C-alpha cells in the first residue's frame, strides 16, 4: 500500500474543515467516542447539526474563533491507500503555516465556494501550489447545493480558474463539483450532479499516480551523521547516514562528494538495518565507501547525470515568514538538507503581487508573507539543484541568526 500526502486550502468559510470532516466521517475514520465528543461540542456551540469542522480545529483559540490558525494533520486509509491530510489555514496571516503543510504534499485540494468563484485567496493558494511545485492539483468547487447544482455556474468557474492555472503553469489540474456539507461527490458520486460524469473525490485521491513524482535518475543524499562504532568488531567501520532524497544508489556505483568534488565508490549499503544491493528515494540508508575521504554532516553524495550546481551566489524565489522585514544586506543562516551556511541577501529583484501575478520591480524590502525574487550569497560554496527541476535538491530555509526562528522559505533557481 502506498502513501499520499495532501493539503486542503481554501478561504475562511469555504468549508475546508467540513470537507475533511466529511472525508473522515464517510470513510468511517471517525470513531464512536470522537463522534460523541463532537456532538457534545456542537451542542456547546448551539449548532443544530454535528459540526464536522470541530474535528480538525484542535486549538482552543481555533474553536473559539471558528477559524484554522495552524496546520492539523489527520490520517485515514482505504484498502487502496494511506492518506495524510494537512488541514491548513487559508487566511493570509497564516500563510507560513499553510506552507508548512504544503511543502510535503503530493497533492493540493483547492476549495472554491461556488457562490463566490475564484477569489484572491484562491489565487494566492494556487501561487503557493505553483511555487512549491505540488505535482497534482484538485480544484473542488464546493457548496454546489447553494447554487442549485448549476452546471453553468460550475463551468464558468472552471473556465475562470483555468486561466490562473495556465498563468502559473500548474501541471496536473482536475476539477470537480462537490458539497462537503451534504456529502455530494465526496465518497460517493452524487445523484444531485447527474451532469458530472467524473469520479468522486475519494476515488480521485485513490487513483492519482504517485510513481511519476520521484526522480530516479539523479542520486542525492545529504549526509546527516557519521556512524563510527570504534569497537573491536567494527574497528574500521565508517558509515555515512542519510536519507536518499532522489535517485537510486547501487553497490559499486561511483559517487561524487560535494562541494569538495572528490569521487569514490560505494562499498556497501544498509537500509532499515539490513545490507542491500541497492536503495532508492525516500529510503534512509547508511553508505560505506571504498576510499577514506573527508566527509561530514552536510556533505552531498551524488550520482547519475545532471550534477547539482556548486555556487556561492544564486537567485531564489523567497517566501518571507517573519514580522521583521527582510532587507538587502541582512544575514541569515541558510539550511539546505543537512547543510547550514551563513548567507546574505544581496538584492531583491521583484515582489510578486499574489493577486494579479504581476512582478513589482525593486520593492526595497520584503514583509511578512511576501514572495520575492532575491539574489543570495553564501559564505561557502553550496551544492544545489534548481527547485523547479528537482524540488528535493533546491528547497532551503532561512534562519534568523539571533532568534533562531525559521524566517524564510527559499526555492533556489
Amino acid at each position, binding site marked *: 500500500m502506498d*502513501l499520499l500526502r495532501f493539503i486542503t486550502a481554501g478561504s475562511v468559510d469555504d468549508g475546508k474543515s467540513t470537507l475533511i470532516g466529511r472525508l473522515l466521517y464517510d470513510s468511517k475514520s471517525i*470513531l464512536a467516542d470522537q463522534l460523541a465528543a463532537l456532538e457534545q461540542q456542537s451542542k456547546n456551540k448551539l449548532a443544530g447539526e454535528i459540526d464536522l469542522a470541530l474535528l480538525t480545529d*484542535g486549538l482552543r483559540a481555533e474553536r473559539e474563533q471558528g477559524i484554522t490558525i495552524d496546520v492539523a*494533520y489527520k490520517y485515514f486509509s482505504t484498502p487502496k491507500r494511506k492518506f495524510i491530510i494537512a488541514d491548513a489555514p487559508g487566511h493570509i496571516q497564516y500563510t507560513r503555516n499553510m506552507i*508548512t503543510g504544503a511543502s510535503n504534499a503530493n497533492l493540493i485540494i483547492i476549495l472554491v465556494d461556488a457562490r463566490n468563484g475564484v477569489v484572491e485567496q484562491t489565487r494566492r493558494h494556487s501561487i503557493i501550489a505553483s511555487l512549491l511545485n505540488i505535482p497534482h492539483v484538485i480544484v473542488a468547487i464546493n457548496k454546489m447545493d447553494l447554487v442549485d447544482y448549476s452546471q453553468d455556474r460550475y463551468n464558468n468557474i472552471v473556465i475562470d480558474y483555468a486561466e490562473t492555472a495556465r498563468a502559473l503553469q500548474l501541471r496536473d489540474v482536475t476539477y470537480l463539483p462537490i458539497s462537503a456539507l451534504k456529502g455530494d461527490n465526496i465518497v460517493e458520486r452524487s445523484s444531485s450532479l447527474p451532469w458530472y460524469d467524473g469520479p468522486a473525490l475519494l476515488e480521485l485521491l485513490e487513483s492519482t499516480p504517485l510513481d511519476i513524482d520521484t526522480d530516479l535518475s539523479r542520486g542525492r543524499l545529504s549526509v546527516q551523521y557519521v556512524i563510527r562504532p570504534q569497537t573491536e568488531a567494527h574497528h574500521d567501520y565508517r558509515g555515512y*547516514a542519510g536519507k536518499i532524497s532522489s535517485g537510486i544508489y547501487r553497490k559499486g556505483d561511483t559517487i561524487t562528494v560535494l562541494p569538495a568534488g572528490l569521487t569514490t565508490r560505494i562499498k556497501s549499503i544498509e537500509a532499515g538495518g539490513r545490507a542491500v544491493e541497492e536503495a532508492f528515494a525516500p529510503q534512509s540508508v547508511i553508505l560505506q565507501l571504498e576510499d577514506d575521504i573527508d566527509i561530514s554532516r552536510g556533505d552531498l553524495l551524488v550520482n547519475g547525470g545532471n550534477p547539482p550546481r556548486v555556487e556561492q551566489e544564486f537567485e531564489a524565489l523567497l517566501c518571507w515568514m517573519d514580522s521583521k522585514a527582510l532587507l538587502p544586506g541582512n544575514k541569515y543562516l541558510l539550511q539546505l538538507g543537512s547543510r547550514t551556511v551563513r548567507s546574505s541577501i544581496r538584492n531583491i529583484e521583484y515582489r510578486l503581487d499574489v493577486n494579479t501575478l504581476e512582478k513589482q520591480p525593486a520593492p526595497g524590502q520584503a514583509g511578512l508573507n511576501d514572495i520575492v525574487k532575491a539574489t543570495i550569497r553564501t559564505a561557502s560554496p553550496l551544492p544545489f539543484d534548481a527547485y523547479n527541476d528537482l524540488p528535493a535538491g533546491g528547497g532551503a*530555509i532561512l534562519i534568523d541568526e539571533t532568534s533562531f526562528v*525559521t524566517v524564510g522559505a527559499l526555492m533556489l533557481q
Partner: protein
Amino acid sequence: MSKEPGYQLDYLDQLESEAIHILREVAGQFERPALLFSGGKDSITLVHLALKAFRPGKFPFPLVHIDTGHNFPEALSFRDQLTAQIGETLIVRSVADTIRSRQLTEPGGKFASRNALQTFTLLDTIEEFGFDACIGGARRDEEKARAKERIFSIRDEFGGWDPKRQRPEIWNTYNGRIRKGENVRVFPISNWTELDIWNYIRRENIALPSIYFAHEREVIDFEGQWVAVSPFIRLDASDNVERRRVRYRTVGDMTCTAAVESAASGIDDIIREITATRTSERGETRIDDRVSEAAMEDRKKNGYF
C-alpha cells in the same frame, strides 16, 4: 522525470524512513539529546527505529524514564530487560523524589494520578543533565492538540508549548537551533497511526510487555472502563472486583490507564480487534483525557510531553 516501475516504497517503509531521518537529525543537530522511554509500545517502537538509525554504532543519547511509581510491574521489567539487551544507558528519575524534594501535593481521589506531576520531574531531569532535545513517541492521531504540533517542537524554559508561535517546518528541513534555556521536543513517529504502529510491530517482530496481550486480571468497572485493582487506586465499598480477561491498548500509569476486555493473545488478533473497534485509543483507555476538551493543549502549554 524518469519512471521505473518497482521503485515505490510501501507506506510503512516511508514512515520508517521518515522517523530514522528525524532521529539522525537529532543526533546531528544537538549536543545532549535524550530519548524519553515509558515502556509503552510507542517508545519501544522508537527504540527499534533508533537501532536501525544508529547500529552498529551506539545511540547518541541515553534512554530516560520518568518513573511515576505507578507503573505496571510488567512494563518496568520489560524496560530493564530491553535496555540490558541492547546495551544502552538508562536514566531513571522518580516522581516520588520530586514530590518529596519540591514538597508537591500528591493528587487525591479514587484514581490519584501522578500524570500531571511527571512534568515537574521531566523539567528537573532536563535541567540536571542539560538535555537540549527530548525525543518522544507522541503521535498526531492520538489527540487533536497533538495533531497541531510540529515534529521539532520548541519549548520555552518552563517546557511550555506556545501553539501560536510555532516555527514553520518546511520540507524535511528541521530547524533545531535554540536559545539558552529553550529545549526541543522531537516526535519522530508523529505521522504514524495506532494501526501503523501495530502493523509495524507485527512486520518487525518487535517484543512487547505481556500486558498488551490478553490475560486474566482483577478489575473494577468504572464508568464502563475496566481499571486494574492495584495499591495505587482506592477501592470503595460499591466497587465490584471481578476477574476478567483483558489487555491494554496503551500503557500508562495503573491509575489512569484502563484495560479492554479481549481474548486477543497474538498480534494478529489485536490488529483484527483494533481494525474493528469503534472507539479511539485514548477514548477507550485513558481515564485522564475526559476532563475537558482542551485537556492536552493545556498540559502541553505547561510543559507536558
